[in-house]
Every structure is written in structure tokens, then in C-alpha cells.
């Protein structure tokens, strides 16, 4: 293959990684030391380290309950995304009357900012009888247009010969999706899972509007508890942020292996 020096690439990536990590370092540092970030000059190395803020977070809010709510809601959203988006993406690989309209509709739907839809979305959810419920929290996020196109792109890359062979074998369209397309689209699935999870996990405004009982609140809503009356940004706040961040990151770490495996197998199949 090509011989080119590796070290400039490493250097550039190290610099970029540094830039990306510096704010993180500060969040992490404050979460374990509780130093006032408004003290001057800022200290690079924390003086005393203790994990008590993490304990604080656990007890200050009903963390376990919120965590469960977030997990259930995100699980529903991820499942919905994978299933519905694969179906829609597959449909879009065919040509049919009205396809252009559907694509246009999808693209236009992306242009609707959530803040402008709060009230009608709430009223509709109310009509459906889904207020203050897990399904109601997850429903608006059970399908996303970006991920539909990710699936479509992935399905487009599956060679026709495979599909034709499957059809000759008598497989229905539905089974083609699940037995032919999906196994070859691991990266698209991984992308869907990661994105759908992150978006539903971090969603703040919708659960805020939607839930009345404290029992149904999701994890990000606990944030308000730490942005105290006087906007004191403390160790507890950052510990909370780290705790909310952790699952999404873990999921990425896990799914990224699938991502890599799916890609290498794709290259081999050639």
C-alpha cells in the first residue's frame, strides 16, 4: 500500500483529541473535587479528590427511578427506530408511485424545530391518552428521518444478486428485510442504535412538558435539582452530568466494535 509518514497524522489527532478533551477534563475534575469553577486562577490539578458528589447525586434525586424511566423510554425509542426505520428505508430502495413525494415529505419534516411543536405535540399525546407514560415519552422519537436514510444507503449497497436470489427462493419482502438486508447492515443498525439512544436519553424539553408525576421523570430532568436557585455550578452538577453521559458513551464503545466488524465483513464480501 502507500508509504506515507504516520507521525503527522498522529500529531494532528493528538492535538484534536486534546481540544476535545479539555472541557471534559474540567467537568470530570470538578465532579471529583468540587472546586468552585468561578475561583481565579483556575487550578489545573485538583487539590482533594473524593467521590462524594456521585453519592450526593444518587441520594439527592430519585436517581434509580429516573434511571429506570430513561432506560425504558430509550429502549422503546431504539427498538422503534431500528424496526420502523429499517422498514421505511427498505421501502425507499424500491421505486414506486409517490416515492418522490415521500422523500420530500421526510426532508421537510426534518425542518420542524421542536420548540414550535410543543403545544400541538402535547395536545396530540393527550388525545392519544399517553400523557405521563413511557410510550408517550418515547413515541415522538420512535422514528427519525436521518436514520431512515442511513438504512436506505446501507440497503442500496446490498448487491441485487442477493435480493434476486432470495426472491427466487420465495422469501417475502418482510423476510428479505430481516434475513438478507439487516445482517449485511450492521453499521447502519449500530448507527441507528447509537443515535436513537443518545437523542432519547438526552431529551430534556419533551419530558419536562409531558410528565406531571415525579415518578415518570427521566434522568435529564433531575438536572434542574442541581442548577440550584442561585445557579451555583457545583461538583454535584458535574457528577450528575457525567452520570448521565456514561451510558451513551458505553453504548458507543460497545456498538463501535459491531461497527468495525460489520465494516470489515462488508469489505470481504466485496
Amino acid at each position, binding site marked *: 500500500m502507500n508509504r506515507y509518514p504516520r507521525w503527522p497524522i498522529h500529531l494532528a489527532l493528538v492535538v484534536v483529541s486534546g481540544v476535545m478533551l479539555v472541557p471534559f477534563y474540567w467537568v470530570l475534575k470538578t465532579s471529583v473535587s468540587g472546586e*468552585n469553577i*468561578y475561583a*481565579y486562577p483556575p487550578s489545573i490539578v485538583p487539590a482533594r479528590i473524593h467521590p462524594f458528589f456521585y453519592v450526593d447525586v444518587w441520594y439527592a434525586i430519585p436517581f434509580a427511578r429516573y434511571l429506570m424511566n430513561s432506560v*425504558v423510554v430509550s429502549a*422503546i425509542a431504539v427498538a422503534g427506530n431500528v424496526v420502523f426505520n429499517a422498514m421505511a428505508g427498505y421501502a425507499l430502495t424500491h421505486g414506486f408511485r409517490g416515492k418522490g413525494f415521500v422523500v420530500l415529505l421526510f426532508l421537510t419534516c426534518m425542518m420542524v424545530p421542536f420548540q414550535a411543536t*410543543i*403545544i400541538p405535540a*402535547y*395536545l396530540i399525546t*393527550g388525545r392519544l*391518552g*399517553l*400523557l*405521563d*407514560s*413511557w*410510550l*408517550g415519552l418515547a413515541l415522538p422519537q420512535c422514528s427519525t428521518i436521518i436514520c431512515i436514510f442511513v438504512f436506505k444507503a446501507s440497503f442500496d449497497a446490498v448487491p441485487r444478486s442477493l435480493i434476486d436470489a432470495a426472491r427466487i427462493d420465495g422469501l417475502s419482502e418482510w423476510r428479505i428485510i430481516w434475513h438478507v438486508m439487516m445482517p449485511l447492515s450492521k453499521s447502519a443498525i449500530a448507527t441507528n442504535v447509537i443515535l436513537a439512544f443518545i437523542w432519547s436519553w438526552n431529551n430534556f*424539553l419533551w419530558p*419536562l*412538558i409531558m410528565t*406531571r*408525576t415525579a*415518578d*415518570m421523570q427521566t434522568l435529564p430532568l433531575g438536572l*434542574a*435539582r442541581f*442548577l*440550584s*436557585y*442561585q*445557579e*451555583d455550578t457545583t461538583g454535584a452538577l458535574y457528577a450528575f452530568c457525567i452520570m448521565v453521559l456514561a451510558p451513551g458513551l458505553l453504548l458507543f464503545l460497545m456498538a463501535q466494535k459491531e461497527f468495525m466488524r460489520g465494516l470489515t465483513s462488508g469489505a470481504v464480501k466485496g
Partner: protein
Amino acid sequence: MKRRTVVKGALAGTGMLAAPAYLRAQSAKKLSVLTWNIADQAELFKVEFGEFKAAHPGVEIEWLDKKGPDLPAFYQTQIVAGTPPDIVDIQGALWVEYAANGGLVDLTPYLQKEPDVAKRFNPDYLNGWVYKGKTYLLPFYVAKTLLYCNKTMFKEAGLAGPPQSFDELIGFSDKMAKGEKTGFLTLNFDWLYWPLFKMNGVELLSPDGKKAAFNTQATAELLARFAKSTASGGINKIAWTGRWVEPNGAFASGTVGMLHAHSASYFFVKGQGPWINADTLGAAQLPGFWSTPTNHGFAISKGSKNPDLAWEFIKFMTSDKSASAFFKTRSVLTANVAADKEGLASLQKTEPLAAAVLQTQIEHTDKLTGNWPLPYDAGLKDAFWPEIQNAVLGRKEPKQALADAERAVNRLLARKA
């Protein structure tokens, strides 16, 4: 065969997930209370709610608390959906918009039936919640602006005590400005800066409220003075550009001579500034004694199904006993005269500096300003304030800025006519 079971399972699962978390069946009486960012009072409220429930058996209380920026979004959505919380704690001038739209229950008949309730409160504060002759809220907790003085900086500049006039205010600021140090800071949200204008005789609107009245030569000169002092460092720029954390933080760092803010700032500043104690911090009134209040009050939503019970509740929460307990846990004024007197007395013994700060809150309550019961208060702020910012930061000539502001304000008022 397999598909059918999958489908059945999916339907069953959906049904389970769709079930709402709370029982739909209405209990005998249920009150929902929405408060503005006081989740830290959970302990106190548990006790108080328990007392109320004991006095009114069969009543359930649902307590919701939202942070300031989130509360309007939540509350309005609930109104549109027809399920507003019975009682809502509102800050600042937002209540007027709701009242003007018919969203709040008029409390005047209740107060007329029970005149003792009105007598509990400081009348100046209570009158802040009157719109078109009707009272809509009962005081929950109140604060108004005062002048904090960094005594150390005063001493360094050779200044004796707090300024006694506007000229002295500007003069002292300029004197204390040196290098990184500045002389004066003010908070600027919610008309908190308005006493600086009022003390110089500026009126915002004409008496009938139909036209802008601030575009005068005197105001232009005032803005010019502000601009000059800001440019030279006498007035810290953050006074005009900061929100909450920046101005309070700057004062807490000990490099600002005077801070014009309300009593809530005291606790934030004290937390951030280890140098603060009775010798280094002074609490005074602004020269001329004008101040802008930032108040929280209890209102009853029009959509409430139990307005009478809601009235009982807010009566209870603002009673001498409850208000007193609240004062003690939060160290904030409640506008309940008896509770405040008692609270101040005990605070005097434990934290005299805090008591001195809160003392300013009950003085000169006849000189409250910057608190207009106008339903388009937010729009008015938006039309007026940016131009003032332009003028004092030197981006526009004062005369030009005032003319632009007048145009914007008049257009707003004309639309509302």
C-alpha cells in the same frame, strides 16, 4: 404461528407501556401546586402539606416544581390542555400576562370576605399584584433592590459611607475605578436597573400608559453620564451586559465597589466571596430610596376545579406560622409583617449581616418602582432595554438610541390599543 405470537406480545406490551403512571380516577379533592424553583424546601413543604391535609381530610396535594425558564413553558402547555395546576407560584411581572388573558382567579372577593388576610401583609407589596383594580396574587416571598458596598474599597478610595445622591454615586464609582477595579455594578434583568432612572426623574410611560415618556433631554444626559462612566471604568460594563452569574460573581471577587442588586444576591455573593463579613460588606439603600421589587406570589389558575380549596391553601401557606417557618429556612422576606418581624429579630442574633441586608427590604416600601402591571411587560422590556444598552455601551448616541426606543415602544403600545 410465530408471527402471531409476536404480534400479540407486541400489542400486550404496548398496552402496558401506554398505561399512565397515576390512576385516572379522581380522588375526592386534589390540589396541584406549581412552584418556581424551590425544590430545596422539600422538607418544609412535606411538613406543611401534612398539616394542611390534616386540617382538610380527603385532600391530596400534588407538588410540582420547575426551574424558572421551564415554568412558563410547562404552565402554558397545561393551560392549553385544560389541566392547569390549581396553584401557581409566579415570579415578577409574568402574572399580569396571565391575568390579562383571564388565566387567573380574581382574589378580591375572597379578600373582601376575609379582610384579616389582607391585613397580614405589607400593603405596598400586596398592591404590586393589583391589575385593573383586582388583586390576583398573595405574597409568597419578596425581595427588592439595595446597594451593597465593598467597605474595603471604599476605605482605599478614602470614601466615608454609602453615596447619598446620584452625583455621589457616579463620583464614588469613578474614584474607586483603578486598573481592574470598577466602582459600580447593577443587575439588569426584570427592570432591576430602573431605580437609577427613576431617581433622576425619568418616567417610562405617560400616566395613561399609551405613550412613551422617556425620550427627554434629561434622559439623554443621564445616558451620556452612564456611557462616560462605563467607558472610564467607573461603571463595570457587566452592569449592562451581564445576567446573574457575571455581575454577582464580579462583585464576589472583591473588585467592584458597589453592587445594586436584590437581597437574593447576598447569599450567592457570600458563597463566592470568602472576604465578605460585617466589616467588609455594607448594605444600604440607593440614594433617594427607590427600589425595584422581584416578588413571588401565589395565584389560582382559572381552570382550577377547586378554587375555594385552593384559596384555603394559599391562605394557609401565607399564614403567620407558615411564613415564619419559610423565613427561617430560606432567610427571605415574606411580606407577611408578623413573620418578617419575628424572622428578622432571630436572624439579627445569628447572622447580623444577613439581617442588615433583609432589613433594607422592609424599609421604604412606599418607593417601589419598575413594577408596572402591564400585560405586555416582556415586550416592553424588549423594546426599551436593547436601545439603552446601545447608548450606555457607546454603540449609539443617546439621542438616537432614545428615539429608536421610543419608536419601538410606541409601536408596541399602539398594537395593544
